[in-house]
Structures are given as C-alpha cells and as structure tokens.
C-alpha cells in the first residue's frame, strides 16, 4: 500500500494569492494513498524541507508530491531532502502550480481547481514511481570552442589557463573575427588590432590551444562530458605545416581582381591570399573560385615561387574526429544585408556605406590607407550623414525586431573620429533615440555632441537619392523642430542591424540546443544561467546569444570558460537515471529505436528466450546503454511495439497522469 505525502507551497503570495492552497491540500488529502497533506508558506526554505523530511520519517512515506514551482527550480532541492530522510529521491514528484497555474490565471476558483487537478495527476504518477539509482559517466578533459572571434579566443585562453586542452574551430582562414575588421573601439578609442592581435598571438602560442582555421564542425554526437565531434578541415591548397606566411605567392599571383572580404569588398586581393598582416595562423589560402590553376589547370605561379613547396593543388578536405567534454559556441554575428532598403540607395550609390565598411575605409590597413575618401571618386567628403537603426527595432518583415545595441556607440565613435581628424567635415546623425547605458558610454556620446559638435537630429531618414553632380540628397524629418530637411551629403553611413551568423542554425541542430525566433542561441535561464544553453555541456559565448559590444562579449566569454572549466575539472558526472529501457519480451528487434537515437545508446543482441509454448527461440532485442542514454524519449515514441519505455516517465505513468486530469 502506498503512503503518499502531499505538500502545497504558498510561495509567499506567488501561489497563495491566486490559488486557495488550503483547499488544494484538503482536496489532495482525499486522494487514494495520500496519508498526509499539508500547506506551508515556503516549502523550499529550511523549515519547509524539514517538514517534508519529518513527514517521511514519521509517516513512513513511500512517495512525496510537492505542489510548488517548476521542477526546473526546486526538484533537486526536494529530491535531496527526500534522500536525506531515507527516501529514494526519484519517489518525489513536483506538481507545477506556479508557472503553470497561479502565474497564468486570475480567477481564484479556476486556479484552485486547476491546482487540484495538477496535484491529482502528480499523485497518480507517484503511485507508479519506482526507486532509481544514478550512475556515473566520465568526462573528456578537452573543450571545443566554435568560432575564433574575440569571444572564442577569450574563452579558449581562459580554459587553457586552467590547464585544459582547447580546440578553436574557425571557418575563416584566420581567427580574429569581426573585431579584427574594426578600426577603433569605444569608449576609449584604442585601436582594435592593438588589443586584439596580442590575444590572437597568445592563442596561437599557447600549448593547450589548437587552432583549426578554415574548418567547420560537421557532426556532433554524444552528450555532456563525452561529445564526439567531426571537424572538416577545408582544403586551403596550402600545406599549413610548411607555409611560412612570407607572402611571396600573394605578391606574384596574377589573379588580382578578387573582392577582398576583409575590406568588405572595397578593394581587391589575389586568388592566393592571407586575409591581413596579423592573421593567425599566418598561412596563405587559395580561393578555388578564382585560382586559374584550380579552375582550368593553367598558371601554377604560386607553386613556382614558393620556396618551401607549401602549395598543394591536390589538397582535399580532411575530416578529423575528436572527443570533448564541453563545447562553447561563439559563432558571432554579421551585419544584415541591405538589399531590401532601396530607400537608402545602398545598392545604387557606392558612397552609401555600412558602418562596418566605414571602419575599413578609416583603417590604416584599409583600402585607402586610413584616409577617409569617398569610394566613388576618392575625394574627401565634407558632409556625412549617419542613419541609425537601419533594420533594427523594425516591426516589418524587412528588419529585426530587436535593438542591435552597439550602433549608437559606434556611430558616436565614427562621428567623433571624423570630426577629430577632419574638422572641416560636417557630421549629422539621425536617430530614434540614443541608447548609451554602459560604463563611460553616455559621457562618450555627450563628448561627441558637445565637444565635437556632431549634429544629432531626432528623426528618421525617409529617402536617400544620389544626384548627378555626385552629391547625395538626404531627405529626413527633424521630429523636435518638426520640419522636413534636405541635406546634400557627400557620404551616407548606415548603421545596419546585426544578426547571428548563418552557420548558427545548422549548428544548433547538431548540438540539440535551442534558438529564439531571431536565431540567437537561447540561454538556460535569462537571468541566472546566461552562459549555459539548455543542453548540458554546451555553453554560449559572445554575440551568438544576443547583440553585445566587446567588453560584454569578453566578460561573457570568460564566464562561459568558467562554466566549461567547472565541468572539465570533474572526473565523472552523475548520470540521470531516468533512462530508456527495453521490455525484451515485447521487443520486435526492428531497429526503429536504434535509428532515431541521437546518442547511439541502443544496440541489438540475439538472445535466447523461452517462448509461451515451452520452446526456446533466439530473438533480436534492443538494449540501452544507460551511461549514454540522455532520456530524450525519442525511442519510446518510435518503438512500434511499445517495448521501449523511459524510467521515471513511463508510458503507464503518463497515461495515469492523463487519466487523473481527464477524470
């Protein structure tokens, strides 16, 4: 006979204000098997837990139902309390009467009824709970960082600092990411390369860090502590181990008309190239889309001039497989494409540029050697208009609903730098509002306005029209003065919204992590677990989780590293005992479960069985490796015969819950 204890939490007024907890406790007290039913102000408090512990001992309970908040909050608390009182922790069930009841209802009578029903379902389930024992599984002492921008570099450096091996996988030929393209950084205006490149070098020199540049993650298997990842090392047609980065091949390559992506296509590079002077690894890469040798077998100049024989036109993509205990995602962001914004004439006029293009135009390593010139006629611009929120905070389908966060600050930076260097240039900034929360940020913006006389105008730009005389007519409204403006600008700079890198979504699928509707990775808890994904062992670093500036990115990168280190220092982790198992008498051996198992936890064996007619037969049956199973339940629904079942969430338990709710 079951002896079940029910404990109803008030959660202060969180539950008690909407749910009549006394009535719930009273009603559940009449359920079959329930021997004690109590309510208490804070069940999760020390004294609340003691109430549970004492009841277990006093009433010799065989099952406990806590009616409280989501099991994601305090399931562990109550499992530990039960274990301390000598009850198997898996005989505790939580009825979520807060998130799923009190917080979403207004009417007390309705909410109380629903809380009783949820409680009854939990009681019905706990009747069928079986004691479970957790096993352990080992942790591979190596971390993978996906993405080699400032976020990935910082995370890798911090993990390496703790003494663990880290691999960085970067899809570009060099690490560095977006920060390498930026000219100066706000609010201190120090040169981005000057602070980034030492970190890049540090990463390349660190004995614990392996950089897989020009590589992609193509497959992820396994689970926390035990991931098996396949990395594709794309053919760069240059032997990384031989290339010294001397750059002779890039000088001699006759194919000189390749748009240079590092400079946002504002100038050209050669078909064999090193993205920029401080690239890490400093190794040449041949672009197969432009190389004459790879396209039609005619040329071979780079191979002739290379003194170390590093050029290898026959190089193939290579795949390597590696085990990792933790994975950190740092896939970063990109500015959105502005194809849909015809009103800003981005595609028609070369002097309408994005902010990232402006960074390159102003950079000493950029197309103009650091002198700001109009891309169209290489003349000095005297009037520049900045347009804020291009595609950010949009409620239409063209843009993004969110604030891209970094634009206000970098636009102030651009405006200030231009006014500093070219005092004869007038600068206008059109904004919806200026958002400058952050240490020394508002002071920085005010300096742009007050000290550098940047014209900040509240209002949106309606239309940008290139004129035949080379000027650009900017039609805008000044909302404060309530007047229409026409500015004959020499250049227009668009603060394009940022979006997660396109590789993030397929990666999220491989990692079985969640994304929001904008393709930013979702953190396990928006406030309390900001650098963990909901999938154990997968951590989030940088702008892949949401728009961020550099200081925030670095802070989060170190936080993600700390979480990864916390996992890697463990020799083993406790497994979840709520794993799948197969009822061999019912198993058809059809392999459906094996096919859907994302963790390869299921194998088949031929076993001898006594049949009902007293003969013996050899049958093919499934068996689950409990250390590998991650309790996703895919097998239980794929199984055609109903042989596969999940401990703690068995088909019969779930049916009992449904029955209790529908009664």
């Amino acid at each position, binding site marked *: 006979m079951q002896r079940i204890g029910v404990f109803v939490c008030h959660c202060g007024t969180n539950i008690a204000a909407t749910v009549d907890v006394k009535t719930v406790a009273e009603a559940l007290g009449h359920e079959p098997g329930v021997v004690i039913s109590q309510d208490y102000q804070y069940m999760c408090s020390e004294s609340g837990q003691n109430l549970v512990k004492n009841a277990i001992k006093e009433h010799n309970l065989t099952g406990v139902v806590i009616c409280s908040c989501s099991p994601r909050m305090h399931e562990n608390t109550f499992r530990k309390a039960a274990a301390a009182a000598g009850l198997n922790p898996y005989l505790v069930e939580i009825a979520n009467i807060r998130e799923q009841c009190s917080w979403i209802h207004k009417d007390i009578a309705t909410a109380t009824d629903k809380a009783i029903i949820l409680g009854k379902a939990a009681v019905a389930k706990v009747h069928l709970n079986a004691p479970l024992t957790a096993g352990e599984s080992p942790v591979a002492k190596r971390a993978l960082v996906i993405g080699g921008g400032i976020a990935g570099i910082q995370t890798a450096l911090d993990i390496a600092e703790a003494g663990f091996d880290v691999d960085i996988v970067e899809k570009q030929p060099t690490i560095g990411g977006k920060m390498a393209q930026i000219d100066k950084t706000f609010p201190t205006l120090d040169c981005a390369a000057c602070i980034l490149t030492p970190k890049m070098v540090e990463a390349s020199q660190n004995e614990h860090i392996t950089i897989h540049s020009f590589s992609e993650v193509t497959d992820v298997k396994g689970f926390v502590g035990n991931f098996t990842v396949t990395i594709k090392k794309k053919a760069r047609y240059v032997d990384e181990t031989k290339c010294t980065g001397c750059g002779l091949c890039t000088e001699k390559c006759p194919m000189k008309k390749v748009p240079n992506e590092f400079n946002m296509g504002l100038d050209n590079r050669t078909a064999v190239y090193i993205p920029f002077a401080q690239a890490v690894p400093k190794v040449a890469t041949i672009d197969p889309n432009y190389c004459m040798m790879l396209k039609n077998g005619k040329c071979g100049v780079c191979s002739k001039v290379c003194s170390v024989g590093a050029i290898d036109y026959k190089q193939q993509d290579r795949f390597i497989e590696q085990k990792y205990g933790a994975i950190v995602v740092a896939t970063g962001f990109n500015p959105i494409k502005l194809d849909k914004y015809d009103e800003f004439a981005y595609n028609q006029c070369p002097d309408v540029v994005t902010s990232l293009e402006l960074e390159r135009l102003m950079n000493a390593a950029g197309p103009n050697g650091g002198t700001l010139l109009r891309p169209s006629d290489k003349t000095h611009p005297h009037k520049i208009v900045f347009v804020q929120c291009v595609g950010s905070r949009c409620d239409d389908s063209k843009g993004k609903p969110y604030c891209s966060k970094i634009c206000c600050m970098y636009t102030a930076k651009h405006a200030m730098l231009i006014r500093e260097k070219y005092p004869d240039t007038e600068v206008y900034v059109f904004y919806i509002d200026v958002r400058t929360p952050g240490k020394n940020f508002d002071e920085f913006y005010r300096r742009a306005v007050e000290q550098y006389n940047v014209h900040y105008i509240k209002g949106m730009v309606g239309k940008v029209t290139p004129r035949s005389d080379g000027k650009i007519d900017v039609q805008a409204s000044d909302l404060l003065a309530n007047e229409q403006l026409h500015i004959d600008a020499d250049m227009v700079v668009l603060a394009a919204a940022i979006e997660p890198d396109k590789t993030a979504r397929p990666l999220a699928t491989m990692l079985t992590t969640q994304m929001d509707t904008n393709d930013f990775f979702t953190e396990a808890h928006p406030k309390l677990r900001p650098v963990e994904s909901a999938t154990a062992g997968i951590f989030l670093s940088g702008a892949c989780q949401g728009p961020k500036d550099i200081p925030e990115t670095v802070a989060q990168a170190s936080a993600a590293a700390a979480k990864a280190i916390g996992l890697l220092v463990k020799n083993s982790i406790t497994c979840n005992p709520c794993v799948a198992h197969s009822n061999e008498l019912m198993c*058809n051996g*059809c392999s459906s479960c094996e096919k859907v198992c994302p963790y390869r936890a299921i194998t088949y064996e031929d076993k001898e069985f006594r049949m009902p007619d007293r003969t013996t037969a050899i049958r093919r049956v499934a068996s689950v490796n409990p250390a590998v199973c991650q309790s996703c339940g895919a097998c239980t629904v794929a199984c*055609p015969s*109903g*042989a596969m079942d999940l401990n703690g969430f068995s088909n019969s338990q779930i049916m009992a819950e449904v029955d209790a709710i529908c009664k």
Partner: protein
Amino acid sequence: MQEAMINRAKQLLADGTVNRVIGWKRGEFVYDVTPAIFETAEELDAEFVYDDFTAANVSKYLVKECKKEGKILAFLKPCDTYSFNQLTKEHRVVRDNVYIIGIPGGPKLDAEKIKAKGITGILGAKNDNGTFVIETLYGEEKMPYYEALSTKCESCKSKKHVVYDELIGDDGEVLESDRFDMVEKLENMSAQERYDFWREQLSKCIRCNACRNVCPACTCEKCVFDNPDSGVENKAPADSFEENMFHIIRAFHVAGRCTDCGECSRVCPQNIPLHLLNRKFIKDINSLYGNYQAGEDTTSRAPLNDYKTDDCEASIVHERGVE
C-alpha cells in the same frame, strides 16, 4: 504459370535448396484460396494452385517460417516483394533463409464482386479481351473484366520485383498509378463530409482483427490490443470512440512502414476501404518529406525514422496539414 511454378518448386525441393514451399491451395470453392506450406512433390501436385484468385500476400507468413530449420521457397508477386523487403529492413525476416521466386502479379479477382452481380456457383473464370467469362454450375456468365478486379489491384503501383533469387516470367516496371485519386477526393471534402464518410465506413467494423492479422507491417511480438498490460486490450468495440479509433491508431502504427499492399481492404469482411487511411499517410509523407516507397529497399531510412536538417519544421507540417 502454375505448371512452371510447381515444376521449379519440385526441382528446388529435390536438389535440397529448400525443404518446404509456401504457396496457395484451394479451399472449398474455386475462389476460396489460402496460403499453404508444401513439403513434398506429391503435395504440390495435389494442391498447389496459382490463378486469378491467389491474391494473398505470403510475406507475413515468412516471419515465423524463416525462423525454422532449413530454407523455404516463397513465390512472391511484385507487391509482395515490397512487403518482404520492409520486413527484412525491420529484421523481422531472415533474408538468407528464404529462396524467393518472383512471379508476375495480378490483376487478381474479387469473388465477392462477381457474386454481387448475381453470379453464383462459380467454377472457374478466364479473361477474354476485357470481358470476363465465368464458368458456373448453371452455365457461362459474362461481365466486364475490370468490374471483377480486387480493390487492391485496381490501381497497381508496381510490376517490378524489388527482391528475388530468380524470376518466372519477365520483370515489370514501377507504374504511374492513380492510387491517390480517392485520397484527394477525400481531402477535398469538407471536414463534416469526411467525418461522415469515415464514420459510416468505420461503424461497420466488427473488430474481427482480420486487417491486423493479415497486415505484413503488423508483426509485433505482442500487439497492444492483445496485451492486458497495455490498458487498451479489447475484442469488441466497447463504444463508438473505440470503433473509430482502432483503425486510425493502426494506420498511425504502420505509417511510414506500410507498403500499400492492400491486404487490409482485401480481407475486410465488411468492405471498409482501410487502404485509404494508409494511402493518406503515404501521400502526406511524400509531399512533406519527398517521395518514399516503403519496402523499395532494405537500407534507406524511412522519413518518420529519420531526421535531416532540411526537414520541414513542425509548424510547417501544421500549416500545410490545415486546409
């Protein structure tokens, strides 16, 4: 054809390749043909039959038969080979224990459709250029050939054998069939009309379980409907809900695995067009995940047992599923 099959079966029995044969034998009436096992040449001569009424798919019998001592010879029509392959894929049959001779398929005839014309005392039948000549106790009768076809043969999906050790006769091709026409018609009905259609059909069910017992995709060691622990074990429909749901649950159960062999409708004593439920699933799977024919091979992943990153999203399934 029957002669050639018997002769080849005798040879294979004699040279020890197989120790038994699964084929068909006649019952009380000429159209009353059932699958049967033959162990000797004498039995084959006496009882083995293959004619226009031998519609039954013998693949399912091989689940049990292939676990016995020695190899068994099976004569499989094109549609039966799909079922056999599907069973191989699910590890329900052991391919090596079966010697398969592919034989040309139908169209096969449905005696009930002939009897519905008022023709009784059937002794034999032959096709005479689109007219069906039936020899009866009371003389010769005629009816249009296509009106006597078994429902499962009205729209044939393939004349090709997807698995065999040898063939008697020529192999055919996968056909362009109109098998989804009726499904489309049902899809175009209003929800109420469709509900009424299925309610009328499914209410005829007497839960004889013939559809389940004949279905080559229904080979569970223990069927949920026979398992007291499942909570749904039952013989007769207890209420109209169960009556409606039994076939729908079964269609879900075989979704992605059903080869569309049509046996369920063929054996239904109440003439419920059960194959339409399965065809709806096949059609939906084809349109959502790309064309897939269960049993076409033994290695590919069935769409419902597979995950690809370019699979349509659940919301898209939902949107496209709603009219």
